[in-house]
């Protein structure tokens, strides 16, 4: 009996809930240790980023105004889908050079981290809100709200965990995002997008590009309709350029390159809080004590 020819996967990018190839038609070959080509990976362009931003902006108000409980369920659903595809992620990590034990560890930490942030979706607001006892006759309270569209350049050293660590706190808080996956370990990015696509996560909430940070960091940080940039790598020149470009429209910039993402140090509601804005609302109260009526 003839040996069956295996179906190989085409690795594409993820924009607005769709799996297009890069509009640029460019690719880079991903090779294994022996030097054989494992896959042709999309070398995403500025235009891909711009398309992804439009998708992210379009999805933001819907995602941000969903019930927090619903967001929690969707993040939990992502964890469920990850769990179901565990073996596939492990084999992709092994293909990219991990040992089986390390790959298993990375996938399990990723799943658990998604569950961790799922739980925060409807709880962090209580931690960061306040009722402010103003001296005048007003009711005054402050609540966190999503900052908007967040551009993320994820960790380079991990294929799956870096993505999950970067995406989960941003979307838990109601933001939408465009994420650049690891350039040297991009295989899990596309598979993770397939997980997202089957988790009831609305299209456009997470958009994943593959390609080169040295090319794209400039565009991630200079786009005028991006509200924040999160950067997980160590390239000082890129950090400087990102911060400079951020000033074009006063983007918030967060550089998380001193955190060991393999540990629980990378799990905290403060990561959610970073891409939140505090909104304070005032309203008059009639006749508190000796105060006059409010209006």
């Amino acid at each position: 009996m003839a040996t069956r020819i295996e179906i190989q996967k085409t690795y594409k990018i993820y924009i607005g809930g769709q799996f297009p190839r890069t509009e640029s038609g460019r690719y880079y070959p991903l090779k294994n240790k022996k030097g054989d080509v494992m896959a042709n990976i999309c070398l995403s362009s500025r235009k891909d980023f711009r398309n992804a931003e439009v998708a992210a902006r379009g999805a933001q108000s819907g995602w941000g105004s969903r019930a927090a409980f619903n967001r929690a369920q969707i993040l939990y659903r992502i964890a469920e889908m990850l769990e179901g595809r565990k073996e596939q992620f492990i084999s992709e990590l092994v293909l990219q050079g991990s040992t089986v034990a390390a790959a298993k560890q990375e996938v399990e930490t990723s799943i658990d981290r998604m569950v961790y942030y799922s739980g925060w979706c409807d709880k962090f607001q209580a931690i960061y809100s306040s009722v402010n006892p103003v001296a005048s006759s007003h009711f005054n309270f402050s609540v966190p709200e999503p900052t908007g569209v967040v551009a993320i350049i994820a960790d380079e050293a991990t294929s799956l965990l870096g993505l999950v660590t970067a995406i989960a706190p941003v979307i838990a808080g109601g933001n939408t995002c465009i994420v650049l996956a690891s350039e040297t370990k991009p295989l899990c990015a596309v598979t993770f997008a397939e997980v997202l696509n089957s988790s009831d996560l609305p299209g456009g909430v997470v958009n994943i590009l593959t390609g080169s940070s040295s090319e794209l960091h400039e565009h991630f940080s200079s786009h005028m309709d991006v509200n924040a940039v999160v950067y997980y790598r160590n390239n000082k020149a890129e950090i400087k350029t990102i911060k400079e470009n951020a000033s074009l429209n006063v983007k918030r910039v967060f550089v998380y390159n001193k955190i060991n993402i393999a540990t629980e140090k990378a799990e905290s509601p403060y990561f959610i809080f970073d891409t939140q804005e505090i909104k304070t609302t005032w309203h008059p109260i009639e006749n508190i004590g000796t105060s006059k009526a409010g209006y």
Partner: protein
Amino acid sequence: MKENKNTKKAFYSGKDLPEVKLKFNSAWDLAPAPEDSKHVSIKKQYDLFINGEFVKPNSKKYFATYNPATDEKISEVADADEKDVDKAVKAARAAFGKWSKLSGKERGKYIYRIARLMQERAREFAVIETMDGGKPIRESRDIDVPLAANHFFYYAGWADKLEYAFPNRNPKPLGVAGQIIPWNFPLLMAAWKIAPALAAGNTVVLKPAETTPLTALKLAELIRDSGLPKGVVNIITGAGKTGAAIVNHPDINKIAFTGSTNVGKWIQKSIAGTDKKCTLELGGKAANIIFEDAPLDQAVEGIINGIFFNQGHVCCAGSRLFVQESVADVVIRKLKDRMETLRVGDPMDKNTDIGAINSKQQLLKIQEYINIGKNEGGEIYQPSCSLPKKGNFCKPTIFLNVSQSHRIVQEEIFGPVLAIQTFRTIEEVIEKANNIPYGLSAGVWTDKGSKIFNLTSKLKAGVIWANTYNKFDPTSPFGGYKESGFGREGGLHGLGAYLQF
């Protein structure tokens, strides 16, 4: 006025309203009621407050500060250059070790002292604030100075409670904070900057604006009298160059800036290659939205307060008015009537509503925008009030028949100029209100609670006033979305800007 019971719309259309032009000027003449300034001592010349004492500037140069209501020179202040900035930063750095190790309880006591001293000298501070900046004495006396003192009092109490503010974290001060503040609320901004910085255990170098340095220098005297350890607070005067030297000083850990969006962007860019932390409170172009079911008379008061408070020199001023079409006629008529009663003139007079524009330069900028508004086809209205012959004054001004694309609708004027548009639906007004790079504040006027919450959750702005406007409190976080800056000042959230974890 008879109420038409048939339809609400007809009642609000304004057609039933009697065409009586109220004559306020004749019947409302008030005798002058000027605040006395004799008890206030202002020196002829002020040096730089570095390491607990006043020292001459390296350049030996001084520049004058004027009373914008009279054009008279009040005093002159030192022009700090890079060497002076370096000296101030060194003093702050030297003081940081001891200050940050002092127990929170003791740090708090010093800050309480500053609050108390300011309350004791409130009248003096109010008079100088009005003389140097042109704002009505009623505002400096009732708002600026009490709020400044309250800010110190509020944050004093946080100094020994920081670990309760950030659950599961271990807060530490940042080090030396460079703080640059604007001319619209000189003393209040100094308090907003210094009080949380000290409570968190930092030391500071603060630069007031070049047109309004005096209350910050009086604050320096007060701080010296309070016995605060030397070098914990350094106050140096100068213009943009001095500010740039602070921003670029390598031994500063944090920049806190309140001012224009352009300068804020320059600061963000300048410190890009460093580890300096930063908070920015920048410009705004707030939407003040009046629905047909709003309490209209109160809303008109809110419009007036929103745009004419402090001559409109307010980053959160309600400078874009959106009136629902069905009530536009009546609201605008009431607004014009109310504008007729505004008293523009001597800021030292206790009856004055609108004082002097802060500087010649700012007056020219406002006049330029008024011309732009006219040239772009806006319909201007100003009340019939007369303006003093001397000093920088501007009539309260509204523009009708403007749209989103007009420059006076898009750009921050920082003066008593209101651009009025109408709207029909909630969706339309939310879209228009948010369609601007700024996001500092907004106002909503309606009697329907669910509508308020709908709007306040959809407006992209850091502070939303519902059925009120321009209210401030030390416990209440203040700061913007988008190009209005990042970070908050005031309240628990204001502490985060001065701590690391």
